[in-house]
């Protein structure tokens, strides 16, 4: 991104008013932390509930003129490897846009609206840094009879953590038992919203699309609950890293395939076999022949964090991979990292070395996540 101007979300003044330290991120001025600080924000989110502004992300509908869900789903399936057609009303899935080589252009959430009269609408949420390219990619392939409707009047917030359910269900009783990866279109204290039980922290929680004109009021409402604290991008990153979740542009990008990235679970079996999406050949090849490298969790010994770009070596001092995300995990209580290693080194408990400031430090391959997921499973 080479333009110097940054955009502001509707919550900019709200963040500043709550003492946020603002930083440029993906073209937006975003809160990196609040007065609580990254460590306490992180721990608070795992213990109670954290409120995030993620309005920089891209939101859009894909709608077929014929009013059929199947038409829109069949189109989207040409661009993503997940099964879109079998989505029930109000169901959500995680997937990726791939390039012709099977590299990941972006990762995204896809849902089918559950609301009466709108069950043929597909709702997508994409990364802020990729949204312009994503929407151009969709438009480039969009056939006649389908529309991409970018939601430039909606903000997006997330309420995450074990107590998010207590807060949200005060206003939406059904939210208590709504399944993980499902959504509702309902009013919350009079403010219409699209709410899904999903997130980017490994915790139970919700992501809520709400009109720009209501978002400050909704955030103030959530923040009026003692359980809720504001969480910035700093803790968002350490939370998702502990949860083993990929950050686009770091852990996944145009050079990584979903199979290398360990995202095969997001590609339903018949789509692996049948293909029919951009990049399918690479996905099928990686499945058949197994990928050359794999994304793995890396546990450094000792306390020194291994940051992005750290070289991973085998015990003989030969380069075998690279750290793509690394830092300190406040809930884990020590350094946490993930990266790519050649496949034969990807087995859990494999001993490796990390080149940190020129010194080879011991580490080992570990199973992700570092902190167990706490999703609602009914």
């Amino acid at each position, binding site marked *: 991104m080479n333009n110097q101007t940054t955009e502001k979300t509707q919550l900019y003044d709200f963040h500043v008013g709550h003492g946020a330290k603002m930083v440029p991120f993906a073209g937006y001025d975003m809160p*990196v*932390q609040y007065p609580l*600080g*990254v*460590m306490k924000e*992180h721990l608070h989110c795992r213990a109670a509930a954290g409120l995030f502004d993620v309005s920089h992300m891209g939101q859009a509908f894909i709608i077929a003129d014929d009013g059929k869900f199947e038409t829109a789903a069949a189109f989207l399936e040409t661009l993503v490897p997940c099964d879109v057609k079998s989505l029930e009303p109000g169901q959500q899935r995680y997937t990726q846009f791939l390039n012709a080589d099977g590299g990941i252009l972006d990762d995204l959430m896809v849902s089918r609206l559950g609301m009466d009269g709108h069950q043929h609408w597909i709702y997508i949420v994409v990364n802020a840094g990729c949204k312009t390219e994503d929407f151009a990619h969709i438009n480039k392939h969009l056939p006649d009879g389908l529309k991409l409707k970018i939601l430039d009047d909606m903000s997006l917030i997330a309420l995450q953590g074990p107590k998010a359910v207590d807060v949200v269900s005060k206003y939406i009783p059904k939210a208590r038992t709504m399944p993980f990866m499902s959504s509702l279109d309902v009013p919350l204290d009079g403010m219409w919203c699209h709410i899904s039980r999903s997130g980017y922290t490994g915790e139970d929680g919700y992501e809520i699309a709400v009109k720009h004109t209501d978002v400050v009021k909704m955030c103030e409402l959530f923040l009026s609950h003692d359980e809720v604290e504001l969480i910035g991008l*700093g*803790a968002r990153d*350490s939370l998702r890293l502990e949860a083993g979740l990929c950050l686009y542009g770091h852990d996944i990008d145009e050079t990584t395939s979903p199979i290398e990235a360990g995202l095969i679970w997001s590609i339903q079996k018949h789509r692996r076999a049948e293909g029919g999406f951009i990049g399918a050949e690479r996905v099928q090849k990686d499945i058949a022949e197994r990928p050359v490298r794999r994304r793995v969790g890396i546990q450094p010994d000792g*306390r*020194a*964090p291994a*940051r992005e770009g750290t070289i991973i070596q085998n015990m003989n001092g030969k380069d075998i991979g690279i750290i793509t995300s690394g*830092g*300190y995990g*406040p809930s884990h209580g020590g*350094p946490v990292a993930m990266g790519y290693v050649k496949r034969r080194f990807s087995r859990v408990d494999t001993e490796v070395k990390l080149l940190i*400031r020129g010194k080879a430090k011991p580490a080992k391959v570990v199973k992700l996540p570092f902190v167990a997921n706490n999703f609602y499973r009914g």
Partner: protein
Amino acid sequence: MKYTEDHEWIRLAKDGDSDIATIGISAHAAEQLGDVVFVELPDIDAEFDKGDDVAVVESVKAASEIYAPISGTITAVNGTLEDAPETVNAAPEAGGWFFKMKITDASELDGMMDADAYKKFLED
């Protein structure tokens, strides 16, 4: 106590004929870094020139270099920081010191800021 524009502090003490400097980061620097989770300290007896990378302080967010504010030889490091790096946040200008150096050239201290000048430097 003297301060540098890199937000480090230096406290001088005499040890026989030698000038020994204790070095750490300012309260302002500690606050800007946020929660410190790791400090990498130099080896005892290692020699550094003014401006060399001596140590690394890592917060949850990022790693930052600590530069030698003066030339000299390391005489001691603060072992407390290995098990309790958060001491840097709790007491940046006291118990959170990083290392001690035997100074090669005391004239390098000339022109460093005192507490009032550093305070003004932060305001500007």
